[in-house]
Structure formats: C-alpha cells, structure tokens
C-alpha cells in the first residue's frame, strides 16, 4: 500500500478515494433494503388500485351480463326498483349538472379571489386570505352539509318557496366546498408567473388591469382550468354534503328548486338497505362504476391540461 501523502490520514483510516471506490458492505445492504421496501410498497399500491378497478368493474357490469338489467332500462329516467325499473339517468345528470353548476359559480369567484390575493393586495392576501382558504379546505364535508341544511335550505325555502332542498341548495353547498381548491390552485398558478413578465407588461405602459386581463389570465389559463376541473371532480365525488341538502327525490335535475338525487347520494342512502347480491344492490355498483369512469375522465383531462401548461412555461 502506498504511503498516505498527508499526515492527517496516518493510520488505519482509508483515504476518501479508496472509500468511494469500494462502498462498504453496510451501505450496499441499506441500499438493497431501501430498494426492496420501495419496490414492495409501489407494488402494493398498484395491486390495490387494480383490484379495486377490477372489483368495481366486475360488480358494475354484472347486472348487465346476467341479464337482470338492460342498458335501456339503466339509462332511462324511471326509477322504481320494486317494479324492476332501474333508470339512473336522472342521477347521472344530477351529478353532472350539480357539479358543473358548482364549478361555474366557483370559478369566477375563486379566480377573482386569487387575483386579489396575488396581484392587488399581496400582503393582506397572504396574511389573511391564504390561511382562510387552508382552513376551508380542512373542514370536513359533513360540516358543510350541516351548515347547508340549517342555513341555506331554510333560506331558499323562505325566499323562493318550496321545500328548500334541491339542485340550488346542492350547488351552493358544493360551490362553497370547492372554492378553496380553485383559489389555491389559481394562486399557485399566478404566483408561478415570474416577476419580470409582469414588469415587461408595465414597462410597455400597461395598467394593472390590462396586465391582469390580457397577460396574466391568458398565460395561466391552463393552470386555472386545472383548478376548475379539480374542483368539479371534487364536487362530482362528494356524497355526504350533497345528500344532506339535495332532497333525494328521483326528479329530473332541470329545476333549481325541486328535490333531486345524484349518483353519490343514491349510493350512500341505499347501500345499507339493499340485500347483497340483489339486483338493486348490483345496480348501485353500476352507478359506482359510472362514478369511477367519470373520475378517470376528469383525471385524464387534468393531466392533459397540466401538460399543456408545462409546455407553455
């Protein structure tokens, strides 16, 4: 062995280069253990996901395969399980309409709040509005439903007559629920625009409003849309709060003030009261499958939009 040149590494201590050349067995061992651990956990995740997908899909298509329910029956609007009429179209439409309307209400409010927080009053926005949205995200949905039940439903009843339960109450509760999602994603999007982009606009003589409306909103559109779709997906999948205020009747969802149902509200209300293996129970699984497919579509949409956003930046 060559004499160590520096007198600091005199005795048994190997030099750094030697240490780097042959990693200690202990390091190799930890490395191997870590690799096994991450390998196993990712496979557990994949297995769980696929079993769920397979389980729900097989359960969901079973009534059609067994011939218990036909497609035309399922996709009709007559819901009367005791007479073997399992028309779920009203609920599918109910889910879609209530979440799209909630997103339409929340999008301008949420994006507006985000603009206020990032562009108009950044100090105040960061100190007060940001924590507020974080708290709003953390409130459990049953609380939103409860508030809807005690405040919004009676309010609608007094102002417009009728029961107060229905599409409008559902839209209001859901739009409040998804507002923080839209706000926080929009805030992130605006904050990711570099300062020199804004300065470039001001230096050309643009006013603050012109900079916001012609440059910032336009360049962050994919990001803003991602927030809106994410909020819509959340509204679509929400069960508890919706079920508490929507009225749970089988009407078509084309009137703001009549009680209706959504896929999630029908499932949560009936899953405990139906016999396992009965056609009624199986049809609930078909509805779950529809929810799953729609959620996957939302995710595909979001991924596509984030990809577009990243390409632009």
């Amino acid at each position: 062995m060559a004499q160590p040149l520096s007198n600091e590494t005199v005795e048994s201590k190997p030099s750094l280069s030697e240490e780097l050349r042959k990693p200690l067995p202990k390091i190799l061992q930890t490395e191997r253990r870590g690799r096994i651990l991450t390998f196993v956990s990712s496979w557990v995740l994949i297995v769980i996901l696929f079993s769920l997908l397979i389980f729900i899909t097989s359960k969901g298509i079973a009534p059609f395969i067994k011939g218990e329910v036909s497609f035309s029956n399922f996709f009709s609007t007559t819901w009367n399980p005791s007479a073997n009429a399992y028309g779920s179209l009203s609920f599918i439409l109910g889910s879609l309409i209530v979440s799209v309307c909630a997103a339409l209400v929340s999008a301008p409010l949420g994006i507006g709040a985000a603009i206020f927080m990032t562009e108009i009053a950044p100090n105040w926005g960061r100190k007060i509005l940001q924590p507020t949205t974080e708290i709003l995200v953390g409130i459990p949905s049953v609380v939103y439903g409860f508030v809807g039940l005690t405040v919004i439903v009676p309010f609608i009843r007094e102002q417009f007559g009728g029961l107060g339960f229905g599409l409008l109450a559902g839209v209001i509760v859901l739009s409040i629920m998804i507002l923080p999602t839209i706000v926080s994603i929009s805030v992130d999007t605006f904050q990711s625009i570099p300062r020199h982009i804004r300065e470039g606009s001001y230096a050309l003589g643009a006013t603050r409003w012109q900079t916001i409306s012609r440059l910032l909103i336009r360049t962050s559109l994919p990001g803003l849309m991602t927030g809106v779709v994410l909020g819509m997906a959340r509204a679509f999948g929400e069960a508890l709060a919706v079920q508490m205020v929507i009225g749970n009747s089988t009407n078509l969802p084309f009137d703001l003030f009549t009680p209706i149902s959504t896929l999630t509200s029908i499932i949560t209300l009936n899953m405990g009261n139906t016999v396992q293996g009965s056609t009624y129970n199986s049809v609930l699984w078909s509805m779950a499958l529809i929810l799953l497919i729609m959620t996957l579509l939302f995710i595909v949409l979001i991924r596509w939009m984030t990809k577009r956003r990243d390409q632009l930046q």
Partner: protein
Amino acid sequence: MADKIVVHDFNLYYGENQALKDIELNIEEKKVTALIGPSGCGKSTFLRSINRMNDLIPGVRTTGSIKIDGKNVYSEEQDLVLLRKHVGMVFQQPNPFPLSIYDNIAYGPRIHGIKDRKKLDEIVERTLTQANLWDEVKDRLHSSALGLSGGQQQRLVIARVLAVQPDVILMDEPASALDPISTERLEELIIQLKEEYTIVIVTHNMQQAARVSDMTAFFLNGEIIEYSETNRLFTNPSDSRTEDYISGRFG
C-alpha cells in the same frame, strides 16, 4: 446637440436607504449613453427611475427632477401610461411573454388601442425587421416566443418595445445573459437604433460600453463620479476612482 433627458438634483431612497445621491445628468438625443460602475452602485435604480418603474416597489421615495423633453416625469400631472409608452425598457433577463411571437409584438399596440389586424401585421413586420429578427421568425410568427434562443428573445423584446413607438429606450445589462455571437448582434442593433432613438444602457462590460456608447457615466455608491464622452472617459479619466475602476482595480 439637444438634451433629451435632464436629471437635476435627483435622490432616491429605498425606505431609509439612499440609493441615489444628487444625480445631475444631461442625456443627449439620439445618442447612446452608457452607465457603468460596480454592482450595487445604483445603475439599475437610476435607469428604472427614468420610466418610473420604481413606483412598483413599496417604500420608494424620490426628490429632485428628471425632465424628458422639458417635462418633469415626477410631476403630479405625468401620465404613467404615456411615460412608459415614450420610454421603453429592455431587461437583463430576456422576458418574452408566454405568447406567440406575433402576440408579443402586438401586445403593446393593442394595449394602446390598435385593433386593426392589417395595422398590427404591418407593425409586427416593421419592428421585427428593425430588430434584425424578421428573416429568422417570419415563418413561425404564431409559434411560442419561448421557443426562441436567448439572443433572439432579447431582439424580440426590443422589437416589442419598438412597437409602441418610444423615443427613449432603456436597457439594463441587455447582453449579460447572452453568448458572444448574440451579444455582437445585439450591439450592432443598438448602434443601428441610435439613428432614431435615444438609448441609455447599463453595462457591466467596459468593452461593450466603449464599442456602443457615445457618452459614459461612471456610478459609484449612488453617485455619478464622472460623466463625459466615452472615448475620453476610457482613455483619459479625470477622477482617480474612474481610473481605478476601468483599469480593473476594483468592482
């Protein structure tokens, strides 16, 4: 020669910190004036005072005057939109908007009320040609400006400034993020532009100041130490601190 910009007794404070002290400077029309000096001596601050970009920073206070064509830009009745239309600015980091090349150029004119497509087309072609960029981008005007190289982006930004028809162009170390060939093209452009525009350029690079500018001001700790013709300042400085700086003894 006519003085385009006259700075008199100008002071600027960031809160308690004084960044510019008693600045006196006459900038001539259709000349290139270079601002040199070590980092942190106030060059960018001074440049941003001319088009009042410092107004965007909270806590900035100024005294004294900066007159352009005889009118104090710090007077009460100064319209900021108009000021920035007349005084364009090019930043250190090329900052094209994440829009198409066409929309980058059309952004300024549209803000100032031009909607006619033909007119916008004409402005886009004219300014890109002026900025020596037309031939490189004429086939992809509608693709993203972010796909351009750094040097092309900086020329695009200059074209974008030209599109609002300024008469003064401020440049803050416009070549510091560029490679040597792009820098050379940018310097050619600057020399070409001074036929029509009054240009004030901050630069770290003394050869660059010597190549492109007619007049040079040497800044140190928020003050102007020396201001004279570029040739004279570099060959025969009258202040020993200028001499130390240009001979590389500090900075």
